[in-house]
C-alpha cells in the first residue's frame, strides 16, 4: 500500500463510519468499483478463473505498478506432478505472471525453497516451464541470498529470509490449499516457509506463532489461494490421486488472514481451526470473520 492509497482508504473509511448505512454503495462506487474483500471464482480453466478473480478485486493494475519488480511466490515444495495437488497449479502461476506483465511490471520473479530436490520440484510441478513461458525469471534459490533479518516477532526474533522477497516492489503469494500434519492446513501464511533459510524444521515447535511472525514481516500485495485441486489426505505432499479433490476454484484477496480463513471452509472447517489464523487475527494482521467480509462469488 503506498501513501496515496493509504490516505484515500483512510478518508473513505473515515467517511463510511460517519455516514448512514444506506450511503455505503455510493462510497464504493466512488472508490472506483464495487470491490469485494475476497473473490471466489469457480470454473474449468485455471487461467481464466485466476484472471477473473484478480479482475473482481480491481484488476492487476491495482496491485502492480509500471516498472515494478514483482515476486510471485507459488508453492513448489514437492516432487509431484500437478494432478497430485502438492504444488501450486502451474496455469494459475503462469496467469498471474502474465497479468503482472500486463500491468506493466518490469520483471516478475518466480522461485521457492522446496523440501524435495529443487530440480525435480521445479520440473515435475510444471511451474518452471509454465512461468518461464509466461516470461517470468524462474530461478533456484541461491543460498547466499538468505540474510539474517530482524523479524522481531513473538517467537522468531531473527531468521535468515530470502532477500529477493524483501527487496521486491510487490509480492504476490500463490499458495495451494492442502492438509498438513502439524499445521492442520497449509494455506497462504504457511507458504512463507518457502522464503526461510536455515534449519526451517525447528519452527514446527511453535508453528502457528512462527508463521504469523513471518506473515507480519512479509505483507503480500495480493494472495491467490489455488484450490483448483486440493489435497485432503496425506498432506502436504500427497502422492495418490485419491488424496486429491478437484474444486476448480481460486480465492483471491489482499488480506492474507481473510484468504486463509475462507480457505478453511474448502475443507469443511471453520477459520478458528487454524492456530495461525486465530493468532494473526488477534494480532490485527487481518480479518478472520468471514461473515464480516464482502465476498464475491462467481462461476465462469
Amino acid at each position, binding site marked *: 500500500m503506498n501513501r496515496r492509497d493509504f490516505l484515500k482508504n483512510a478518508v473513505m473509511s473515515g467517511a463510511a463510519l460517519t455516514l448512514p448505512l444506506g450511503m455505503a454503495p455510493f462510497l464504493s462506487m466512488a472508490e472506483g468499483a464495487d470491490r469485494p474483500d475476497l473473490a471466489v471464482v469457480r470454473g474449468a480453466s485455471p487461467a481464466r478463473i485466476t484472471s477473473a478473480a484478480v479482475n473482481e478485486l480491481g484488476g492487476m493494475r491495482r496491485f502492480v505498478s509500471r516498472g515494478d519488480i514483482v515476486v510471485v511466490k507459488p508453492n513448489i515444495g514437492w516432487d509431484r506432478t500437478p494432478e497430485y495437488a502438492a504444488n501450486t497449479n502451474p496455469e494459475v502461476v503462469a496467469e498471474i505472471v502474465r497479468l503482472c506483465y500486463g500491468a506493466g511490471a518490469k520483471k516478475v520473479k518466480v522461485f521457492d525453497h522446496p523440501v524435495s*530436490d529443487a530440480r525435480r520440484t521445479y*520440473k515435475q510441478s510444471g511451474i518452471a516451464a509454465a512461468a518461464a513461458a509466461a516470461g517470468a525469471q524462474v530461478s533456484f534459490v541461491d543460498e547466499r541470498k538468505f540474510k539474517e533479518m530482524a523479524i522481531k516477532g513473538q517467537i522468531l526474533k531473527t531468521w535468515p529470509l530470502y532477500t529477493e522477497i524483501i527487496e521486491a516492489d510487490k509480492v504476490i503469494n500463490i499458495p495451494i490449499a492442502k492438509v498438513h500434519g502439524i499445521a492442520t492446513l497449509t494455506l497462504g501464511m504457511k507458504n512463507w516457509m518457502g522464503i526461510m533459510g536455515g534449519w526451517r*524444521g525447528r519452527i*514446527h515447535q511453535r508453528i502457528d506463532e512462527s508463521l504469523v511472525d513471518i506473515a507480519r514481516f512479509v505483507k503480500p500485495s495480493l494472495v491467490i489461494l489455488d484450490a483448483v485441486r486440493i489435497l485432503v*489426505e*496425506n498432506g502436504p505432499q500427497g502422492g495418490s490421486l485419491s488424496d486429491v479433490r478437484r474444486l476448480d476454484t481460486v480465492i483471491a484477496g489482499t488480506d492474507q488472514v481473510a484468504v486463509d480463513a475462507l480457505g478453511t471452509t474448502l475443507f469443511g472447517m471453520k477459520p478458528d481451526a487454524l492456530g495461525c489464523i486465530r493468532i494473526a487475527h488477534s494480532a490485527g494482521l487481518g480479518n478472520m470473520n468471514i461473515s464480516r467480509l464482502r465476498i464475491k462469488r462467481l462461476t465462469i
Partner: protein
Amino acid sequence: MTMKNLRRFSQTLFLLLFLWLFLQTESKGANELGYPVKIFLDADPLIWLTTILASRSFYGVFALAITTIVATALLGRVFCGWICPLGTLHHLAGKLKKRTIPNKQVFLRSQNLYRIKYLLLTFLIVAALFGVQLAGLFDPLALLIRSLSLAVYPIFSYTLRSFFDGVYTWDIKFITVGSEFIYGFLKKTLLPFSQPLFFQGIFIGLIFFLILALNLREKRFWCKYLCPLGALLGLLSRYALLKRSVSEDCDGCGVCLRGCQGVACFSGSPGGAILDKVKEWKSAECLVCLNCDDPCPKNAVSFGFSRKQAPAALDLGKRRVLSSVLAGMAAVPLLRITPLAKVGAAEPTLIRPPGALAEEMFLKRCVKCGECMKVCITGGLQPTFIEAGLEGIWSPVLVPRIGYCEYRCTLCGQVCPTGAIRKLNLEEKAATKIGLAMIDKGRCLPFAHNMSCIVCEEVCPTSPKAIWFEEVRLRDRYGREVLLKQPHVDLSLCVGCGICETKCPVLGRPAITVTNLGESRSKDNQLLLS
C-alpha cells in the same frame, strides 16, 4: 592430415565426449537422464569379462565391449592410443616431463615392468573366476570416473565456487556484476547443481594424482606398466593385422623410440644389440600412436596390414604367472573371512541404493565406478570404506544424514554399468524398501521433551504416509496440559528412503534413523512376519 594428427583429433574428440557425458551425469529434474552416460564403461571389455566371470551371468548391452574386442584384434591397442580418456590424460601429463635424457637412456628404463599389468590382469581374472570382482579398482575407466566424481570434480567446483563467492561478498559494483554473470553461466554449464561432498574424496583424489604424477617418472607409466585393461587389449592384439614394419633403410638411430607411447619398440637389455632391436616391435605394447612414423629420417617406418611376421613372444615367467594365479585364488577366502555375511551381523548402516541386487551378487557386479554417487540427487550416496568388507570398498552406501533417497528418482539404476543397481520404473521404485526407519524416543521432541515437531511425518513421501501420529495430552513441568502429536512408523509402509532422518531437526544424532533391516533385496535381513 597426417595419421598422427588424426590420432590427436580422435583423442581430443573422445576425451571431450567423455567429459561431456560426465557433466550430463546429473539430474535436470526429469525422470530420465536422456544421455548414454555409461557408454564408455559399456565399451570396456575388462569390466564386461570380469563381471560375467564373477557373477556367472550376462548383463545389459555388450555390443560395445565386443566391438572393442574385435577392433583390438584387427588394429591393436587403438583403444589405448586413440580413445581411452585416461590414456589421453596420461598422454597430456607426460608432456610435462622434461625431455633432457639422451637417446641412449631411453633404452635403460624400466623395461621389465610391463609385465606387472599382465600379472595384475591374471590376478583379477582368477579372482573373478572364483567370484570376487576387483577389476573395478584398477580398470582405467572405472578409476577415472570414480576419481573425477568423488575428488576432481568436487575440487573443481569448490575452487570456482569459493572464488565467485569471494567476489560476491566484496560486492564491488562492476566486477561483481560481471563475475555473477560468468558464475551464472558456469552454473548452467560446467558446475554441479550443488557442491559435491564425499567421504574419502581425499584418498581417491590422492591416488589419482599419484597415478598422473607417475608420468613424470616416465610418460604413460600407467598405460605401459599397470593398466589391466591395457594388458587385456595387449593380449587381444597379439595377432592384430595392423603391423609396424621397418625397411632395410633403418640405421638404428633410435629417434623413433623417443616418441613411443608404449614399450613397443625395444626389449632385451641395453648393449651392442640395441640397434637391431629398434626394428623389433611388440604388438601387445604398441598403442598405435604412430609417433614413430613421422620422425624417421630414413622414412623406414611404416604401418600396414599384413599377416606375416610372427609376434614377439610374451615372456612373463612361469613362476610369476603362477604366483598371480595363486594370489587371485587366495584373495577370495582372504576377503571373505569376515562375519559380515552372517545374518544379523552385517553393518546396519549399509543402506544400498534402491534396486541394488542382494549383497553377494551386488558385490560381484559393482565395479566401484562411482557413477551412482555422481548422479545421486541429494548427495546421500557415499563410497563405503570397510562397512561392506574390503571387497566392497568404494561401493555405494546411502548416508541419510547427508542426503536421503528421493522418492521418485531412479537415476542410480539408470547409470549403473553392470546392473549391480537395477533400473527401476517408478512403480517398482515405490515398492522397493532400502531399509526401515525407527524412532529414538529418548531424543524425539514430542516423546522426550513434550515439544511439538513431527517434521518426519510432513516429509514422509509414501501415500498413505508411513509415519503417522497419535494425538496425546500430556502435562509439562508446571502441570499445564499440552496437546502433542507423537510420530510412529508403520513398518509395512516405510521404504527406508531416509528423508525423515535427513530432515529431523535433532541434528547430529537424529531422533529417527534408518537401517538396512527390511531391505527388499535381502531374503534374510527381515523383521516383519509378512
